[in-house]
């Protein structure tokens, strides 16, 4: 794609459009906005293909990070326009969404990863889970989360760091387990 091969972009779109739409939809809760994010994501991937470095991240992570950035831009823009503060229902369902995904095909690696992440989220203390959900799906900054949860800024930072550390450990152990499979 970095060489300007349009067919590579078409293939990428076919394989990943649904996943990109998923991230955008769960963050924005609006189909039209999510579709705009899909378009912007693939457009940016096309334009910046030469910046992708396979040694630094996987292609899927790179694409998901672009999608999240574009969705976050829209979330922030919405908030500036409407002084919008997400209701709890917008951001409290990360666990359920991942659990729903993990119950799909029990034997696939992706599904195992989802199941493990769902379990890891389930096992997080509620206060840590809450801040991760607000940050991941709501795109709220530290100070916004502190205001929403009525907690000191330092506490919010610590909770996010602890929660992400636990999720990461779980993912690492799962990756090792999958690597050991015959």
């Amino acid at each position: 794609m970095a060489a300007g091969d349009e067919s590579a972009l078409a293939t990428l779109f076919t394989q990943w459009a649904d996943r990109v739409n998923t991230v955008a939809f769960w963050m924005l809760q609006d189909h039209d906005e999510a579709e705009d994010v899909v378009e912007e994501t693939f457009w940016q991937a096309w334009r910046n293909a030469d910046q992708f470095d396979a040694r630094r991240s996987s292609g899927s992570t790179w694409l998901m990070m672009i999608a999240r950035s574009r969705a976050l831009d829209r979330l922030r823009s919405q908030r500036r326009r409407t002084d919008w503060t997400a209701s709890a229902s917008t951001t409290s369902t990360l666990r359920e969404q991942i659990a729903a995904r993990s119950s799909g095909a029990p034997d696939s690696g992706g599904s195992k990863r989802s199941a493990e992440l769902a379990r890891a989220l389930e096992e997080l203390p509620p206060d840590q889970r809450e801040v991760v959900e607000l940050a991941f799906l709501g795109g709220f900054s530290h100070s916004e989360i502190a205001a929403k949860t009525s907690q000191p800024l330092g506490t919010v930072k610590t909770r996010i760091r602890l929660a992400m550390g636990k999720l990461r450990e779980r993912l690492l152990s799962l990756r090792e387990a999958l690597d050991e499979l015959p």
Partner: protein
Amino acid sequence: MSSHRIHADIVELLPAAALGILDRPELEPVLAHVRSCPECTRELQALRELVGSLALALATEPLEKDRAAHLRTRVMNRTRRRPALPRVSRAIIAAERWSGWMVAAGLATLLLSHHAVHEPLDYGWLTAAVLGVALVILGLYARLLRKRVIALMNILDEGAATCDESSRSLE
């Protein structure tokens, strides 16, 4: 503040950086530190992989078939209007960055060599030094201008992208 303390503060912010929730004033020092700290680079990368995994683990919200086809057409049309930026190698970027200084150094060397051989002026060394300083100032000014030009090009690029979106919404 000690570099150890700065490192500890940055480590605290890496999860938020990976989640993309830092404001620009918070993010810039984090990225500056990460560029010079291999440990933080690895940590940030691992956290980004985690965020990517969380995104991939969400329950799928598939696009409707005709909507997907329409979107695909929109994306492909957009790429045809504005092709991908050409790949520029790191060597070319480095050469571009240092070429001005190399020319300045070459001119200064020429000037000093000429004076060493011919001694055309009474205060030739002083003149050469003044010219050398002038070249350095000129180089710094050119570097400043280059940054401004790059910033302007980015603004123009963003403007072009916005125009693309506006024209699309008129379609």
